[in-house]
Each structure stands twice: as C-alpha cells, then as structure tokens.
C-alpha cells in the first residue's frame, strides 16, 4: 500500500500540537491522571485516617511468637487506647475459634501465630502466619503489608544469624501487596482507555460534520497513516500518564512497582487497541450526540469492571465473568502481572490476546471508517 512514515509523522506533529494547545487535551493528558491517583490513593490507601483494630492470636508459647507480636506492635506504632488514627493491635485469647471471635468483635482483620511458631522458626522450617482479612477492605491490605514487613524482618534476622538457629525459614504469608500497588496499574489502564476512546469517538463525528475527513481525503494522507498517527500520539500520552501516576504512586503512597519491558508492551498495546476501537465506534454513529452515547455504552462498563479501581478478584463471580470479555481487563491484568508480581509468563497470554484483538479492531476500523461517501 501507499504508506509513508513521513506523512504519518507530519500528521502526528499537527495533532499532538493541537492536543496540547486545547485545554481539554492538556488536562486529560497531564493533569487528570495525577488527580485520579491522588484521589483514589488518598481514599483507599487509608493513610491513617481512621483507627482500625487488628486482633492477634498468639498460639505460640515460645519466645519467637512473643517477639513477633512485639515487632507487629512496634511496626504499627499507632496502638493506643486514645482515639489516634491508625492500626491498633489487640491480643485475642488463645482458647477461642479465631474466625468466630473476629465476627463477635465485628472485625475482619486478624493475625494468627501458630502454636509451633517458635519451634519451626528456630529449626528453620517453613511456617505460616495466617492473616485474616476482607479482600475489599483497604485496612486488610495494610495489615497484610505490615505482616509482610515483620515477616521479612524476621527472615533477615534469621539469615544474619542473630537467632543462630536454622536459616531460611521461608515463612509464607498471604500477600504483601497494598491496595495502591493494584491501583497504579488499574489507573494506567483507565487512562489508556478513556483518553483515546473519548477523543476518537468525538473526533470521528466532528471531523465528519465539519468535513475535515473530506478535506484530508483530498490529500495523499491515507486512513491508515492518519489512524497510526493517533495511535502513536496516545501511546505517548499513555506513557506520560504512566510516568506521572507511577511517580505519585511510589513517592506519595509508597507503591511497590517493578519496572520492566513488559510494561512497555502494554503501554503500546492499550492505546493501539483503544484508538482503533474509538474509531470503530465512531463509524457506527452519524451525529456527535449518537456517537457519544455509543461511546459511553462501550466505555463505562469497561471503565469500572476491568479492575481499574478494585481488583477483579474482589468482585462477585458473575461480574468477574463479565470482566473477562472486556479487553481492558487483559491490559490491567497483564500490567498487574508484570508491575506487581513480575510474572511475565502470566502476562504473555494477556499480551497475545490484546495484540490479536487490537489487530482485528484496527483492521475493522480502517475498513469501515470512510473519508468520503458513496
């Protein structure tokens, strides 16, 4: 075909400059992502806004269990009988069913230290500290984080031989991930969805109304070049959003993020898909009003059900099923895998799926989107 990279780049230059000059473009590219992460980070990360009680049942009679509890106490650091905010550790009696005990206290967060904790630790065996929590509650994430830190500290101490007992007591804990760790990839997915989708849906109808497409069709610029330039632009804005959000996530909320090339793949694939989808949606409707309705119909379910603000695993089963047909889910799931867990193998499936559907949607968009009329 008649493809020219230089034409694509000329179009990119004009479009990019226009986007930055337009107040909305500037806002949605640079300001909005930062607002989002600050807002959601502050709302959900707790940040010591309220006091929540965490019950600890220490079934261990040895010294390590006690040391663990005091370590927990010192980490949480907020516990007092006053009304100060933060986590408050309380000891639970050892002769009760812990789960029922939590219910009786209307609490969902708790930690159980097993009876053989000292023994196992000192003999270098694997041992589990059980963390009780509510997956949708942010305090649970904080509790998990604290337990993880303490466990980590114990392991390090074990390794340096202070206890001069068996090393590598690899204690497994539920998870050491905080809500913010999930929020950063989710919001990157959100930014990769909203900004190109809304822009493309809007553009496809206003350009048609103002005959800009007709005008462009009278130049050697091809539809593919034009669409590609938009994809490149939104890859750039998504990368900028990523940098800004990650910076805020890490420096303001202490998110743990692994930087690697897998992230780059998703920062390419996401905008590739959503620019194409936006264009395809835009071709369906003739007026700007109809276009925005159709655009919202496609965008909003994806925005909320793909794991942007909450982990999909915290949703009921039927909604999880819905999430699995939404392409954004695969972007966020993949980003979670590479950014949080560094699990590339799990992300390959997401990448492949996203790439395949992007190619299809791109081809459909180029086919169905018309510069001129019959």
């Amino acid at each position, binding site marked *: 075909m*008649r493809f020219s990279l*230089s*034409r694509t780049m*000329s*179009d990119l*230059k*004009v*479009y990019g*400059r*226009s986007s930055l*000059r*337009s107040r909305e473009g500037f806002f949605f590219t640079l300001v909005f992502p930062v607002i989002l992460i600050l807002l959601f980070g502050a709302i959900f990360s707790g940040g010591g806004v309220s006091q929540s009680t965490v019950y600890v049942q220490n079934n261990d009679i040895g010294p390590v269990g006690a040391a663990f509890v005091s370590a927990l106490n010192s980490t949480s650091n907020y516990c007092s009988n006053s009304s100060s905010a933060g986590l408050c550790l309380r000891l639970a009696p050892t002769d009760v069913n812990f789960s029922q005990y939590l219910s009786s206290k209307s609490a969902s967060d708790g930690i159980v230290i097993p009876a053989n904790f000292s023994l196992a630790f000192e003999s270098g065996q694997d041992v589990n500290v059980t963390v009780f929590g509510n997956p949708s509650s942010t305090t649970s994430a904080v509790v998990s984080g604290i337990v993880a830190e303490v466990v980590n500290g114990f392991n390090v101490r074990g390794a340096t031989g202070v206890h001069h007992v068996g090393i590598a007591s690899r204690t497994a804990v539920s998870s050491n991930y905080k809500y913010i760790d999930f929020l950063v990839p989710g919001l990157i997915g959100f930014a990769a969805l909203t900004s190109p989708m809304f822009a493309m849906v809007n553009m496809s109808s206003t350009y048609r109304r*103002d*005959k*800009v497409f*007709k*005008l462009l*069709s*009278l*130049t*050697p*610029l091809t539809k593919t070049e034009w669409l590609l330039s938009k994809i490149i632009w939104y890859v750039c804005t998504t990368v900028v959003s990523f940098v800004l959000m990650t910076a805020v996530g890490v420096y303001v909320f202490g998110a743990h993020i692994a930087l690697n090339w897998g992230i780059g793949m998703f920062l390419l694939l996401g905008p590739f898909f959503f620019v194409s989808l936006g264009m395809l949606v835009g071709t369906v409707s003739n007026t700007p009003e109809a276009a925005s309705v159709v655009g919202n119909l496609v965008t909003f379910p994806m925005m909320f059900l793909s794991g942007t603000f909450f982990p999909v695993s915290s949703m009921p089963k039927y909604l999880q099923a819905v999430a699995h047909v939404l392409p954004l889910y695969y972007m966020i799931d993949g980003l979670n895998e590479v950014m949080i867990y560094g699990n590339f193998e799990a992300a390959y499936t997401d990448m492949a799926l996203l790439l395949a559907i992007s190619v299809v949607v791109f081809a459909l968009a180029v086919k169905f989107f018309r510069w*001129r*009329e*019959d």
Partner: protein
Amino acid sequence: MPAIEVSGLKKKYGDIQAVDGTSFSVEEGEVFSLLGPNGAGKTTTIEILEGLRNKDSGTAKVLGLDPWASGYELHKRIGVIPQGFKFLDYPTPKEAISYYGALFGKKVDPDELLRRVILDDASNVWFQNLSGGQKQKLGMALSLVNDPHVIFLDEPTTGLDPQARRAVWEVVRKLKDEGRTVMLTTHYLEEAEELADRVAIMKHGKIVAMGTTEEIESRFGSGQRMVVKGGDDLLKYLRENTRLRVEGGAGEVTIFLRDKADAMAALGAIEESGAAWEDLTVRRDSLEDVFLKLVGESGGVGEGGE
C-alpha cells in the same frame, strides 16, 4: 482535452434526484460557475468531480481521470475548498500550510503562499480565532499547496461580509491569471457575473441555461426593455393606446422592446400621455432577470440541503 468533462451525470439520494443528467465541459484556464438556489445539485455535482462522492450513472472526467476511481492520482493535481471550509482548531495558517506541504511532499514557503491569498497578517493565529473570511482564504492557500491545475470552490463566499467576499474574488482572479482552471458554485449572481467566463444555471439537478452571461441574457432574456418612473396613469395610457407589452407597479413602468420601432413608439406614447414621468432608462435583461425567470422567484429560498 477539456479540463472537466461531464455528460449525463446522475445522482440520487433516496427519492431525491439530486443531479439529473447534467452535461457540460470546462476548458483549461477557464473560470466556470454553477449557479443555482440551494438544493439545485451544485454541491453534489462538484463533489462528484472532486472524487468525494460516487456517481450513479453518466461520465465525469477531470484532467482525463475518473475522480472516484483515480482519486489518489487526481488529488495531487487538483485543489479543493469544500463548502463551509473548516480545519482543525489549533494549527495556525503557517503550520497548516507546512502540514499540507509535507502531506503532498511539496516544498512550500508558507509566508509566500499566505501573501498570495492576502492572509499574511494572520499567519500565526490559531485557526479557531480566524474570521470567516480569513478561514476561507486559508482554505484557498491550502488548495494551492500542490500547485493544482484545476481548483474547485464550493460556495467560497457564502456567509462572508462584502469586504471579505471581494478579497476572495481578488484571489480567484489571480488564480485565473495564473492560467488555472477554476470551477465554482455559488448562489450569488453577482459572484458568477464577476468571476466566471461561463455560467451554468442549475435547477432541480438539471442545467437550465449555460454560456457566457451575455449569451444567457440574450438567449433567455426578452431583449431590451425601457424602464420609466411613472404612475398608473402612464401605465394605463400605454396599455390602451399602444400594442407594446407593458408591465408596471410601484411607481415604475417597464416596456419590453422587440426592435427599434418599438423604442420609437414607446417614446412617442410616453410623450403623448401627458402623464408625469422621469428617469427613463433602456437596458438589456440582466442575469438576475433571467435567473429569476428560469429558477423562479422562490428559487433563492432554501429548499433543504444539497
């Protein structure tokens, strides 16, 4: 070879026959105008020639090419300003021209081109902040980036104030002087008379008259007419005492003249009537007279989109 050749061109939208078998040709270097009320099929015709719409039947050739099938080739050699030209909101005229230059792979000097269309005073203003006339002039500048042989202007001055309209006309005349072929549509008679070498008057998708304005006036007009300011008494006298065709009203009497004898008879009768009269003029039917006759008084009022 004519620059533009059209014959038996037809295009239908649903039940509406927008273009109904039009035929015409435009020679190289000529300025040709399609004149007609809204809904006459002007825009559809010009868009088919630009390769923006496909025809139903008939032939349309521009520079020997089928506009729809060979659009990519054709577009390198024609310039187009669509009706109500709009561009992206934020580029400046200078940036827009550089952009077009890059798309066409042509080296252009934006400042020089902007001078040519008399827009050098607004070369760094965002498009959205340009006036209507300035936008239209940018449209002309963009259509010239590829140094086109044929330029299509679809209602280039609709909605512009008289001053901006004259500025656009000036640019069109320059294009003609440069030897380019120009095809324009308009519903302003004055514009067609000012700019066009030949005019085709369209109504309901058909060409009802075509030629130079003089040709149209003499062929479709009723020849010379004498117009006198005078009252009903004069009108009545002329009707009763001569065999001349006379119309009147609003303090004006029009006498249609077939030959010199009619003129002499009319003058004599006016003198004999003893009625008060003044401001006697003799003129040919104007293009406007012909246009109104062909298209109808209501023709100028919108009949819906084209």
